[in-house]
């Protein structure tokens, strides 16, 4: 993929993650999602959520369930032969997901159940 955009091919995987970030980070400003603003909570989610998926990834790689085009990843590996790109995936996708949830909440005001819901939903108020 990289060669088409005159970009090193090894950045192909992280390039896709860049697409995800570009597609979601603007929500923090335009929809005032306040996810980055609540970074301690975000960091704790990230620190915990990566583990089951890193373990799954390492097992799947060891069994050959999936494998990577080594010319299209960074070439840095974690224990279990998990590419660094995969760890970045397990950080970026939770961030984009939380941004999406909070963006929907910003517009619709629907209850999430985290102790900070805003009372009646817009349109339900007398």
């Amino acid at each position, binding site marked *: *993929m990289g060669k088409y955009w005159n970009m090193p091919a090894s950045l*192909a*995987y992280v390039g*896709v993650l860049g*697409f*995800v970030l570009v*597609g979601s980070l603007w929500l923090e*400003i*335009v*929809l*005032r*999602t*306040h*996810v980055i*603003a*609540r*970074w*301690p*909570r*975000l960091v*704790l*989610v990230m620190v*915990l*959520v990566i583990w*089951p*998926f890193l373990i*799954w990834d390492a097992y*799947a790689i060891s*069994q*050959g*369930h*999936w*494998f*990577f*085009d080594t010319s*299209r990843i960074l070439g840095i590996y974690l224990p279990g032969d998990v590419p660094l790109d995969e760890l970045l995936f*397990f950080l970026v*996708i*939770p961030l*984009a*997901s*939380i941004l*999406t*949830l*909070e*963006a*929907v*909440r*910003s*517009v*619709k*005001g*629907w*209850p*999430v*159940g*985290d*102790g*900070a819901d*805003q009372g009646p939903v817009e349109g339900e108020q007398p």
Partner: protein
Amino acid sequence: MTYTQIAVVAVIVTVLADLFLFRTKLVTKKVFWVSYAIIFFFQLITNGMFTGFGIVQYDGDAIIGSSSPAEGAPPFLGDGRISFAPAEDLMFGFSLVLLSLCLWVLFGRWGLSRRPTAGPPLWRTVRKGR
């Protein structure tokens, strides 16, 4: 276990955790399903890039469909694939997204960074001249 089997188990375990372990009950909430619909659309695009360009490839013994071809892209639709990616990837993604959102809600309930809450969208305040 195959990728198919692990993916099904992951979805079941995550949904059970949402309902009974964390009691976040996101799968019963409108806000989750609308968010997931948006995420699902973009997931098809990113999955398509990862697999259509062959960045990630799969062993046919581990998935419903057959192995990723050595040359060129796998089928866009069919042979167990949706947007080039194995259907299992959608289950993998669902469990990653649901677990992330469960933890986010859980830590909010525990009082960690509960505020500032989301919103209002920029356009609602710009119009008022704030």
